[in-house]
């Protein structure tokens, strides 16, 4: 009796009890399916975040105000007012700094924007003309903030595609129209191209105004949230970081670098931090899915044990007719493996299908990861062997005479 025949024999036995086989399979299908769905969704969101960060521009250093420690007491970061537009201008014009191509500064805050009867709560960013180049902003229509706007504190605005849609409706050009921010009228001079995205990080839900206008007219502040620096090349990034760091320390009259009232981050740092978060998230999801896979495996063992008990008489008969232990072990083991194998394939198809549909419906790129599929499949096969082994052994060790008597 060869293996091919044993597999066929096991397969035939499984088809004799379709409901039970189906139920045992269901555990594996759900287990494998959820592993694949969750892992691929996790990877998709990781890709999506990485792409979003990359799309903000490479060679980019972001300087943010940091908590300045005063005798061991640190203030909340973010609300710090240590960076100004003058810092940005100084970085741009300093003869000590050779690695910087362009510099921009931003002050942004969420506020209510009104156009006619429509209004929306959105992020209003005061920026300088260099911002567009540094942050890869392209306009689908109109023009961006100019030096003259900045110098003249002009009341002009550039709308994100989402904001424009909220205020003026779909497919309506906002150029030349008027919006009101904090009660002050602004003339819309530009419309941004859609970057795609959703949620609170939506790059399309934004209004740009000149930095000076935002600081003096809208929000009454004299500091900035961040300064963006574009280095001359990717290789110059670390030098640029050092130059700017020492320059700002000197400018802010801070001697100990550990006491710096600002921090400089490259895109890589942000990417790394984001990757860590999404990575942890993926591991967490996979962990949950793995638990369901193990539960599925225990389900198989449970059903195989019931099968062994129910088929005690049959096992006794097979042994009486000359089946050796190995043959009985293999027959039951193959049954468990076939259940996990077939269940695994269905689970993989289901998992890919589900993750495809889900990633479409929540606007994520569809990530298809072969290693995760192979892993899930390997794990399911291992579960078949692992959880099928004990019932198979139990069957093989039955004494034919006891098994024959069993009714």
């Amino acid at each position, binding site marked *: *009796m060869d293996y091919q*025949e044993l597999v066929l*024999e096991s397969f035939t036995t499984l088809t*004799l009890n379709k409901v039970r086989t189906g139920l045992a399979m269901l555990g594996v299908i759900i287990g494998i399916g959820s592993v694949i769905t969750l892992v691929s969704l996790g990877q998709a969101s990781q890709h999506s975040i990485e792409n979003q960060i990359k799309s903000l521009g490479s060679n980019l250093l972001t300087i943010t105000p940091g908590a300045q420690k005063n005798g061991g007491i640190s203030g909340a970061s973010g609300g710090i007012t240590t960076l100004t537009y003058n810092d940005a201008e100084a970085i741009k014009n300093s003869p000590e700094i050779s690695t910087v191509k362009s510099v921009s500064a931003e002050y942004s805050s969420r506020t209510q924007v009104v156009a006619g009867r429509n209004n929306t709560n959105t992020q209003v960013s005061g920026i300088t003309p260099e911002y567009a180049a540094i942050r890869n902003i392209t306009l689908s229509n109109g023009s961006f903030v100019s030096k003259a706007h900045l110098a003249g504190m002009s009341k002009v605005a550039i709308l994100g595609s989402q904001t424009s849609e909220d205020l003026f409706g779909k497919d309506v050009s906002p150029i030349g129209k008027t919006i009101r921010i904090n009660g002050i009228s602004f003339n819309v001079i530009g419309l941004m191209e859609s970057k795609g995205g959703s949620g609170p990080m939506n790059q399309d839900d934004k209004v740009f105004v000149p930095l000076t206008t935002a600081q003096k007219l809208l929000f009454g502040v004299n500091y900035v949230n961040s300064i963006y620096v574009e280095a001359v090349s990717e290789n110059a990034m670390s030098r640029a970081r050092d130059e700017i760091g020492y320059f700002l320390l000197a400018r802010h009259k801070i001697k100990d670098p550990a006491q710096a009232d600002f921090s400089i981050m490259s895109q890589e740092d942000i990417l790394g931090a984001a990757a860590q978060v999404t990575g942890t998230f993926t591991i967490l999801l996979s962990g949950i899915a793995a638990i369901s896979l193990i539960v599925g495996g225990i389900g198989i063992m449970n059903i195989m044990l019931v099968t062994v008990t129910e088929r005690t*008489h*049959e096992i006794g*008969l*097979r*042994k*009486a*007719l*000359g*089946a*050796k*232990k*190995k*043959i009985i072990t293999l027959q039951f083991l193959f049954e468990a493996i076939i259940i996990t194998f077939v269940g695994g394939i269905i689970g993989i198809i289901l998992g890919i299908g589900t993750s495809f549909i889900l990633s479409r419906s929540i606007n994520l790129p569809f990530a298809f990861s072969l290693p995760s599929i192979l892993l899930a499949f390997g794990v399911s096969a291992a579960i078949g062997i692992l959880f099928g082994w004990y019932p198979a052994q139990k069957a093989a060790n039955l004494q*034919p*005479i006891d098994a*024959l008597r069993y009714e």
Partner: protein
Amino acid sequence: MIKVSHISKIYKTGEVEVAALDDVSFEIKKGEFAAIMGPSGSGKSTLMHILGALDIPTKGEYWLDGKLIDNLDDDELAGIRNKNIGFVFQAYNLLPRTSALKNVTIPMMYGDISKEKRLEKAKKYLQMVGLGDRLEHTPAQLSGGQKQRVAIARALTMNPNIILADEPTGNIATKQAIEVMKIFDDLNKEGHTILVITHENEIAECGKRIIYLRDGKLVEDKINKRRREFAKITL
């Protein structure tokens, strides 16, 4: 062919020891048609299990075809059951939801006989027991007598030294019982060694030799002079 000498089987239930078989010795030669007869509890089922290599005696020796069976391990016993013994059970013991043909091939499957040869032999033996037209029937679609004939076909396929039948007619109607016993008689005429275990006189008297058991002991071993002539039986 079969030689048992001083075999005993002792079961322990707690402190009490019960001897299901107590010092039984006999020999069965090739071509014999013997019946082992006794009331229930006489130890005949235990004897059948030992003779069938399903169980081993506590004491004594069992020689089958010149080979001592007592010291074999599980797998070796499985080999003996497969090649040397053909079983016919009271409860038929066919695989449910499985065709007669497939049922008959099972011992050959475990005996490593090629697939083509298995089917060919299974068909041949099923035709021999008069079931040539019921190859694809499952046990549920067959009568008691037919099921037992499938079991006999199954017992013959590996060409065993001996056919062991344990109450082969216990579950079937008289007319079919006679048909079954007639098949055994025919097989014996072809040279097969047959050992039937029964508690019914009529069945035991089909044998050429009758061994009587009582309380685990062999009480009588005689040539059956009142043997039924199968050809003459009509119902």
